[in-house]
Structure formats: C-alpha cells, structure tokens
C-alpha cells in the first residue's frame, strides 16, 4: 500500500508541521530522522490517524484517510507506540491478540482464526515460548518486539513505528531493525519508522526522510541524501561521515 502525503499541515502552539508532498512506497523501509522536536512523532501520528489531518492530505492507495472509519483505518495502518503503559498485566498471548480488534465487533471475542494469527505473529518475532508469560516480566527489548507482534496481528499492509529502538541495547536494536527489514522483504509491507540512531538509519533504510523544524530537509536513499553539510545544518552541531568496510558511520 502506498501512503501519499499531499500538503499536510498540522499546527500546534509554537510548532507547525508542513509536508507539501511525500510518498511512502510499499516494499521499502522508510526512516524518518531529525532532531528532537522536528516533528517525527507528529508526522507519524497524523499518518496513523491519531492526530487530525485535513481531508485529502493523507491518501492510502487512492483512499482518503480522513474518510475511513476507525476500524477500516486500523485494517490498513498499524501503529507501534514507543512505550506501552498499562495498569493491567496481560499475558503476552492476550496482549498480541488485541491486534485483532479492527476485525472484531463491539460485542465479539476472538475466534480460533484470530488466535492463530496472534500465534503466528509471536512466532515471527521469534518468541513463541513467551505466549503464557505476563507482559510486565518482559525486558524492554522484548516488549518492543511484542508491540511489533501486536501490530503484525493487525494484518495491515503498512506499519508505522515510533522510535522502536530507543533505549535498547545494541543487540536488541539490531534485532528490531532486522525484523523490520524482514517485514519489508518477506511480506512486502510498507514500513515507516522514526529513528534517532543515524547509523542504523543509514544502514537499514531504503529511503531516508530528514525532518527539521516541521519540514522536510531532504528525502531519498541514504547514500544520496546523507552528507556532512546537511547533517551539520539539521542537527546544528558539526558532524562527519566516515566510510569503513563499505558501511557508513556518522560521528560528531
């Protein structure tokens, strides 16, 4: 599914997000980077329908996002929040099962098919043995993976992930990134992810969207887009790009 942004504007007290045009393609991993307050999460939440966008400013395969019902939207777009905070300690299996909500009515409970989808999502993230464990016993890295599994159970053509690697150790960080690459390669999903780690973005993303103060500073494949002048301008500190054994490293 292609997500098209046409003249999206979102205003808040001292901040305005203004995206004249952006197209997020299926089968590609698109990463949004930029300093704090650049509008990464705002963009993601507008795309997910969590913040109001003008009718016609976000179009999913020709369909206006604003015209979709909550359930219809959730059957096309899955949103993975940065943190999950709940007062209740659900078992991992029951937690992932909640991804089936867009397919179930107000008075319905999940059927065997929904259970199977949830189990498959848990297997995809590689934690099938955790089904009966309580969510609160999981480490923060495992929790991120379980949140992604819930989005997978939602069975949407597109996934939007808000900083899924922040606060993770290097191993879990690459685990999450490899998982996203697999989603794109094996399932052909449209994946949009906000990231802080520029090395990870440069290494894994197909397309990089660089945001600064609510607008796009650059957009394209990392190899073409990333340069020292751009990064220094966007992050407002001197930054250098080093190449080592065919990989890009960003140092400051």
């Amino acid at each position, binding site marked *: 599914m292609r997500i098209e942004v046409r003249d999206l504007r979102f205003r808040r007290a001292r901040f305005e997000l203004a995206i004249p045009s952006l197209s997020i393609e299926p089968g590609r991993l698109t990463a949004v980077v930029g300093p704090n307050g650049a509008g990464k999460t705002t963009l993601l939440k507008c795309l997910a329908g969590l913040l109001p966008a003008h009718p016609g400013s976000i179009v999913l395969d020709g369909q206006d996002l604003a015209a979709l*019902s909550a359930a219809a939207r*959730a059957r096309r777009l899955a949103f993975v*929040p940065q943190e999950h905070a709940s007062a209740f300690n659900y078992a991992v299996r029951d937690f992932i099962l*909640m991804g089936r909500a867009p397919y179930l009515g107000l*008075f319905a409970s999940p059927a065997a098919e929904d259970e199977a989808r949830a189990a498959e999502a848990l297997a995809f993230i590689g934690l099938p043995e955790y089904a009966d464990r309580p969510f609160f*016993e999981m480490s923060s890295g495992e929790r991120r993976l379980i949140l992604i599994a819930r989005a997978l159970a939602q069975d949407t053509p597109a996934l939007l992930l808000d900083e899924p690697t922040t606060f993770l150790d290097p191993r879990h960080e690459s685990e999450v990134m490899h998982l996203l690459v697999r989603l794109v390669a094996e399932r052909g999903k449209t994946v949009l992810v906000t990231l802080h780690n520029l090395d990870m973005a440069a290494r894994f993303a197909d397309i990089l969207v660089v945001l600064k103060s609510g607008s796009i500073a650059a957009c394209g494949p990392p190899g073409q887009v990333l340069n020292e002048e751009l990064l220094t301008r966007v992050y407002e500190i001197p930054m250098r790009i080093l190449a080592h054994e065919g990989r890009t490293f960003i140092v400051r």
Partner: protein
Amino acid sequence: MREKTKALRTLIYLVPFGLAVASLWFGTVRIPLLDVFKTLLSPLVPSWKAALPAGYVDIVFGIRLPRIILALAAGSALSISGASLQALFKNPLVNEYILGLSSGAGFGAALSLVFLPHFPPQLLAFAFAIVAVLLVLSIASRSESPAVSLLLTGVIISAFFTALLSLVELFASPYSLQALFYWLMGNLSLAGWAQILPSLPVILAGSLILFRMRWRLNVLSMSDDEARSLGIHVRREKFLVVVLAALVTSAAVSTAGIIGWIGLIVPHLVRMMFGAENRRVLPLSAALGASFLLAADDATRSLASFEVPVGIFTSLIGIPLFILLLRRSSKVWL
C-alpha cells in the same frame, strides 16, 4: 498448576448456586432441607403443597427467595461494573464510589424515597448517578494528569452528593428517616418482590451487555492512542461502558442500598488469582461478587439476634480480607 486454576474456576462458578440453596434453608424459621425443595417444587406438585406446614410457601417464596435473588444480582452487578470501570479508566483503584456513581445514585434514591414515596427510586438513582459521573468526567478530562484528577474529582463530587444527601435527611420525616438510614447502610432485609422486580431486568440487561463487551474491555484498557490505533472509537465506547455501569450500579444501589467495597475488592481478588484478561475477570467477578454478598447477607441474618446492615458487614469483612491477600500475594497483577 493449570488443572488447579481450572478447578478453582469451576468452583467459583458453582458456589453461588450452592449458597442460594443453603440460604433458602437457613434462617430464623428452620425448614428441613427436603421441605425447602418440596416448597420450591410445590407450585408444580399440588399434593406436596397441601402436605407442607402453612407458611413455608410464604417464607421461601415471599421472603427468602427475593432476598437471595437481590443479593446475587446486586453482588454481581457491583462487581461487574467495578471490573469494567477499572479496565476502562486503566486504573485498578477506580470504583463506583470514586466516580461518584454510588453517592449520586444514593442521593437520587434518597430524594425519591423521602419526597416521592410512590415513585420507583431507580429512576432518580440512575439520573443522579449519570449526573455525578458526567460531572467527574468533565472536570477531570480537562486536567493534565487524568488519573490523579479523576480520583480527586471523584472524591469531591462524592462529598458534594453526600452533603446533598444530608440535606434530604434533614427534611425527611422521622419515619422515612429511619427507613432511609437502614437503606443507606446497605440492607437486603427490606427487599420483597415489589422492590426488586423493577431493578432485576436493568441489572440483568446491563450486566449482559458488559459481559458481551468483555474482550473489548481489554483493548479499551490500553492507552487512548493505542486503542484508537487498534480501530476503537474510544469516546463512543467509553461513554457506552460508563452508561451501562451507571445503570447497573444505580439499579443495585436503589434496591439494596449502599454496599461498599465489593466493586473494588472482588475484581482485584479475581485478577490476583487468574490474571488481568477481562474475558475471565468479568464472569468470575460476577460469580464471586454474587457469592460474596449472599454469604455476607446470610452471616448478617444468622450471626446476631438482630440484623446488622450488610453494607457494614461487607466493609468489615472485605477490607481485612483484601489487605491479607495484598500482603500474601507476591505476584504482580497490576
């Protein structure tokens, strides 16, 4: 372990039925157990009816049965609405009291009992329960930290309606004051068919709809953004659950009086034993709440020569029980 929980679950579902039979059996007039069954079946077998001592039919059908049904219905109503509200507000401390539901319903019912004696108290109880909860929600929703302000606003609105209730008491005649006083402490002894019949369908229908929404409550217990991204129309569905909980609570409160702590303690006990999944929490809370109130009512009518209002009893038993379990439970369930 799993077998054990399964057995415990079955037991919790069976207890209300056993308790109901036991409650028909004991009381100030001792009726042999066999005669209780014969009385129950006597409308179908006329020859038994003739053979039974006079008064058995009146005692079993007229006095004990409506009281038992009310205890079961009110106990499960308060527990199921407590469990639903806790999920909805993502806060295990929420109960009918904190949201002002009980005090609103209490004030409405008192107003009705004192000034409109021929009017069913359920109507005003429901109206003021909704007024109270809407006041709490509208004030709390404007705050930066909804969880804290929800609790604070609830306390304030409850205090406000309690003050209004005192005002009603001040204007009540001595006769209606005594009735009101008994009712406020939570009392099932005043319940006859005439009192419980208007409430039963409301409790039954409301609880049934909440029960049907049991899985949805899991999703509603996520943060609002998460629930929305999972395709939930958050505002609409929250409103529906609040209205249903208010209906069920006010129907219970207007007939049984103010019965404390069940809506908080019972769902917690269930979560401690069986986890947070609402597909289990709701039905198990209903069964356990029904048993709890019925057992408490049985205790109040058999322990002393006079009847202690059951509301006092549920608080006196419920709170220490809760503290005990809280201390012994090593599991994280919140």
